[in-house]
Each structure stands twice: as structure tokens, then as C-alpha cells.
């Protein structure tokens, strides 16, 4: 049987994964969710036809979005994860004993249910007693929050789909307000390679750069992302991702990782020239 899942990365580029079988398909108020079993990527989940994560490469993403800020901020007690309904980010956070509270805000109950059923290794992150799961809209949850969090992780991936509200100036503004004076926000920054994605990537940097005194971008290799190349944003009120990075302290924790290392932390902020250029262009437009 020749059964393939395909996702258009641009009008002219298609990524296809051979599928063993489809495990789930369902429609929520927010998105269509499908789960497939594949030989190459193991199980993977899609939202409205776009891959959100796969068993084979989800570690990259969850580690990079958690360990980078955690190795910089010296004292994280309270964390807000927006859109982390699969539990992967909460799982990585749960390895840090000094964290006292983790609020996970996910609007889509079906998404959580599907992840619990098909991705138990991610979803176990939500079982940690410090995690409080809120089925709310991210922007709505942030409204009225003031000076509450040390770290906010925006785990939403799609600046064009139903989570578009989490890639906006009002979102960055709300996060700024909800963070303590030394707070950090990290977020999905998309992929800069294809022309179609470049504008969204530029706009994100422009908005974050305007909203936070420190705004840097770092990278990772994630095979199921468009062009396999993915960026993250690091926006911060006080700590610089490299100057305030404490590698020794992080290594002493003895956490087991598959992607993140303290050397990679430094390297992830060293960007290709074309990416540096497009980010700088946006900074000058401010």
C-alpha cells in the first residue's frame, strides 16, 4: 500500500511522509486534528493539515524552548506556557525543582485529549502536581495579569491559523505586562527560508523588538518544519541570552538531553548571514 501524508510548505514545495496508518481524525471548535503512524517519524500529529510535532523530532523543539531560557534566568519560580496542550514543554520544565508553579493555557480540550491518548510521553508533563491546566484563550488568560511570571513560553506554532492572536503586538505587550521586571519570554519564531514564511518571521521580530529591551533569535534543526530549519525568539526585560548565560550552573543540574547542550546554546544564537540581515533590517525599521 502506498499511503502518504503531504503538507504543502509553499505552493511549490511539498513534504511527504509515508504513513503506516491513521490513528485519529477529529474536528474541534479550533482545528482539525489528525494523528498518523509512520515508519520514519513515528507518530505525528497535524493541525489543519500541518505537522505540529512528531515523536522523532519533538525533543528538539521542547528542549530548545525550555532549556535555553532556564539556563539564563537565575531564579524561575512561576512559568506560563501558552498553547502547550501536548505537555512536552511542561515535561521539560518539570525537571527543574526550583519551579513552583506552571500554568499551561490551551484553548482546545480535544487537542489535550488526543495527546494524552496518543502521546503519553509528552502528556505526562501535564501530570506534574505543579502544573495547572487552563482551557482558555491565551490572550484572554493574559488580560489583567500583571507582574506575575518569571518565564512565559509561547508554544503556539502557527502565526496564520487559529493561534494568530499569539503572534501579535498585543500578545507581546500582554506578556511584557504579565512578566516580572526580570522576566523572559520565549516563542516560536517560524522559519525564515521560504519567501512565504519570511514576512511572518520579520513581523514577529519587529513586534518583539519593539516590546522588549532585549530581543534575540536562536535556531534549531527540526526536520518536519518547513525547510527543516526553525527559529525561536528570546525576548527579555533584563537578562541577555549569552551574557547572562550560566553554563556551569546548568551542567551541574545533570539533566539528560538529546539536543540541547551548553555549547549548542552559544551556537544557536550564531545565525546565518541572511537571517542576521533580515532581522537587522526589521530592527532598523522600528
Amino acid at each position, binding site marked *: 500500500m502506498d499511503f502518504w501524508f503531504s503538507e504543502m510548505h509553499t505552493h511549490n514545495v511539498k513534504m511527504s511522509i509515508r504513513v503506516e496508518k491513521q490513528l485519529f481524525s477529529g474536528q474541534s471548535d479550533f482545528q482539525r486534528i489528525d494523528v498518523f503512524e509512520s515508519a520514519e517519524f513515528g507518530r505525528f500529529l497535524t493541525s489543519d493539515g500541518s505537522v505540529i510535532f512528531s515523536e522523532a523530532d519533538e525533543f528538539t523543539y521542547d528542549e530548545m524552548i525550555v532549556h535555553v531560557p532556564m539556563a539564563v534566568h537565575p531564579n524561575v519560580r512561576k512559568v506560563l506556557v501558552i498553547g502547550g496542550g501536548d505537555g512536552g514543554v511542561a515535561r521539560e520544565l518539570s525537571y527543574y525543582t526550583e519551579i513552583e508553579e506552571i500554568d499551561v493555557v490551551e484553548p482546545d480540550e480535544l487537542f489535550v485529549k488526543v495527546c494524552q491518548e496518543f502521546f503519553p510521553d509528552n502528556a505526562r508533563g501535564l501530570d506534574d502536581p505543579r502544573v495547572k491546566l487552563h482551557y482558555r484563550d491565551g*490572550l*484572554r488568560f493574559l488580560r489583567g495579569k500583571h507582574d506575575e511570571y518569571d518565564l512565559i513560553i509561547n508554544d503556539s506554532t502557527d502565526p496564520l491559523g487559529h493561534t*494568530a*492572536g499569539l503572534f501579535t*503586538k498585543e500578545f507581546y505587550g500582554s506578556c511584557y505586562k504579565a512578566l516580572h521586571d526580570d522576566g523572559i519570554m520565549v516563542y516560536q519564531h517560524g522559519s525564515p527560508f521560504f519567501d512565504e514564511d519570511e514576512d511572518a518571521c520579520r513581523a514577529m521580530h519587529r513586534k518583539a523588538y519593539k516590546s522588549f529591551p532585549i530581543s534575540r533569535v536562536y535556531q534549531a534543526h527540526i526536520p518536519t518544519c518547513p525547510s527543516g530549519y526553525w527559529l525561536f525568539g528570546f525576548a527579555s526585560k533584563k537578562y541577555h541570552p549569552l551574557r547572562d548565560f550560566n553554563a556551569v550552573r546548568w551542567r551541574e543540574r545533570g539533566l539528560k538531553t538529546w539536543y540541547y547542550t551548553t555549547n549548542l546554546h552559544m551556537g544557536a544564537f550564531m545565525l546565518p548571514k541572511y537571517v542576521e540581515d533580515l532581522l537587522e533590517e526589521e530592527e532598523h525599521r522600528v
Partner: protein
Amino acid sequence: MNLEKQKSAPVYEALERFRRQRVVPFDVPGHKRGRGNPELVKLLGEQCVSLDVNSMKPLDNLCHPVSVIMDAEQLAAEAFGAAHAYFMVGGTTSAVQSMVLTACKYGDKIIMPRNVHRSAINALVLCGAEPVYVDPDVDAHIGIALGMEIADVEQAIREHPEATAVFVNNPTYYGICSDLRSIVKLAHEHGMMVLVDEAHGTHLSFHEGLPVSAMEAGADMAAISMHKSGGSLTQSSLLLLNENVNTRYVEQVINLTQTTSASYLLLSSLDISRRNLALRGRESFEKVRQMAEYAREEINSIGGYYAYGKDLVNGSSIYDFDVTKLSVYTRDIGLTGIEVYDLLRDEYDIQIEFGDFGNILAYISIGDRIQDIERLVGALEDIKRLYSKPVSKLHNAEYITPIVAATPQKAFYSEKELIPIRETPGRICGEFVMCYPPGIPILAPGEMVTDEIVDYILFAKEKGCSMQGPEDGTLERLNVLV
């Protein structure tokens, strides 16, 4: 309304039948199902251009409907509780003008509120009727024009018993409704027709919790912007008639200015939208109502903004309020509505309907989702945090009573001269001056220019309103009658 009958869409079904027949076109349009214009096909899609066809026997003709268009219009009439409905392809402007041209001949008088849409005054230029303006009350706090008060209509009727019609905006852009039933009763007692510009009220006929619609209130004619809350394509509209209006005469009037090549894209969109409204309108507008109410609560809880609703109702100038409208007074955070409008677009990628001196209006419709409402509320909160200023005493959008010195038609066709605006007080204006949004005339052809009006125009211009109408777009000079 017979729901079983409402499930059909005669124009749409005729187009489907026509498509399957694969008729070879040796008629207009010349793009021939798009083959002659591949770039257009790429932009609009094959399906869309293939529906752009000419009037012909199986598809009826809008100029004189006898089959599918007639059936579709009949269904629309039933859905809206009217005796007759006309599909309009020249926007609600054409529906408004058809109403005025039906009710007024040269030299007739028509009673209308000053805050009419320019299309109504343009109709007076066409037919030579004379406007009798009823001053709308202006809310002292939020600075918007309100509805028509019965006492004012009564007075206008007493002073001008020969007037042939009363024209009402209902609801206004902001959602303000007049006491339509009483206006109809009063006008009919004096043998006058009631014409309702219901451009912002397509939905009123489909939800019992909303203000009364023109047809239900017994008005004679109503212009309905199906493309606003009804979901049809831009430029498509409906003209509704109650009993006792001469349909033959209305048809003649419509055909004076209507195209003889009506677009089937527009006609089919009217047909399908009418079906949607009839079958699912109640449910959709319930959702819209809830979203608007939710947004109002959330915006009011930010503090500094005033999202108004039913609380404004006062039994006269605000007889009722259309709760699907989301208007917000912004001046208490020190920003004009125009400034908030610009910030939303430039900084937050949110396009709202308009901003005036004191208010913004966000249009909520069946196409909205709750997450978009959260964005709007989030953006307003962020604007307050980042851009709010000390509250200053700003110029309010005050209503200035016009002095009609000549009919719009006479002024429009008179010889005029262009002179510096500061020198125009005391002269008769020869053109429109409108502040967009919301498009209510500050000056119409035939009106006396005063110092107060000139001050207002210059202030609105400085505040960034788009000033439209005058020949000199910079508004340094104005056309006045010689």
C-alpha cells in the same frame, strides 16, 4: 415564512444547470468563461469567472424578471416579511436612490434626518426635490448623532404638510434606532410614505431580540445592505417594498439608472445569502449578539473605554439599540477614535470599520470567531497601556444645523467658483463636504457656509479624517455659487 420553500435558491440553481449544459458562448462577456483572460482566472479562480455570464433565457434578466430572478426575489420578499423585493447590483446607494426617486418628483419635499448617507442627498440632486432636515439629537458625552425624535418629526410634518415622504436611518451606523412604528403611524396619517435606510440592519428581520425591522414596522420601502450583515458580495443589495407601493413604477425608477448587464456573481450571492439568512439567520445572529455582548463586557472591564449598548436607550432619541454593533467611546483614555483606529491598523494589524472623534466601531458579523474578539480586546488593552494620554477637552463632533438656501439640484447645476475656504462664509455651497468616516455631510450643495462650519471642517481635516466630496481635495478652496 415557509422554510421548505426557502431551501431553494433559484438563481444559484439555474447557474448550476447552465454550467452543466456546457453551452458554447457566442455572447458577452468577452472573456468567455475566463479563457480570454488567464490572469483574471488565476486571481479569481475558474469557478468564479465561469459564473460571470450574460443575462439569457435560462438565467432571466434583472431589468425585467420573469423566471428565476423573479422567483428568487419573491423568496427574498417572504424571508424579509415584505410584499416585494428587488435584487440590486449598484450597492445600497442604488436602493436608497430608488426609494427617494419613487417617493419624490421635482419640487416635492422630503423630511429626512441630517445624518443621512450621501446617496440620499445625491438622489435629490437627480430628482430636484427639496430636503426638510430634522436635527438629530447629539449625545453630549459620546458625541454621536442619535435617532429621530417623534416630536421633531411631528413638527416637520406640521410645518411642511405637503411633504411626500419621511426618510429614516434605522439603525444608524452606531446601532441607534428610532421609534419606527410611531414614525410610520404619524407619516401615514398625513399621507406620507416612509422610506427606511436599513443599510445597517439586514439582520433585524432574523432575530426576535433585535430592534423592529422596517417592514415589520410598516414602512413603505427599505434599502437593505445584504453585503453588510447579510453575507453577500460587496455591491449587492436589496430594495424591499410593503403593500400599496406601485411595483411597476418602482421598476421603471430602478431601470433609470441600473445596469442592463447585472453581474450573476452578485445576483447569486444575494440568492444564497437570503437562503442562509432564512435557514440559519436566527442562530448566526444569536452568535453575533453574544460575541458583541462579550466584547462589550471585556472592553468595559479594561477601564477607560466605554463600549455602549442597551444602557443608552432613553425612549425617544435612542428608542432602541442594535446590540450586534460594537461601538466604543475612546476619549477617556485621551485618544480620539481616529487615533485608536490608526493604531489598531498600523500597530496591531486590526482593521476596524471606522473611527470618528470620540468613537470606534468594530464590525462584528457571522464571519467572526471568538479568538479574533480576544485580539481586539487585547489590542485595546495594550493601546491603553502604551498610548493613553491625559484626557483633554477635545472638539466634539457637534451637529451643525444646515441652512438650506437652494435645492441640491439647483446648487449642483449652478455656475460656481472656487474660492479660499476662509472666504466662503455667507456664500452658498456648490458641492458636498463629507467627513469619512462616517460619511455624513457637513455641507451639501445648496447650503449656506458659516464660520462655524469652516472651523469644523478645518479641525476634522487636521485630526486626520478623510475629507471627501470637494473638487479641491486639500480643502484649501471650496466651490460656491456665483
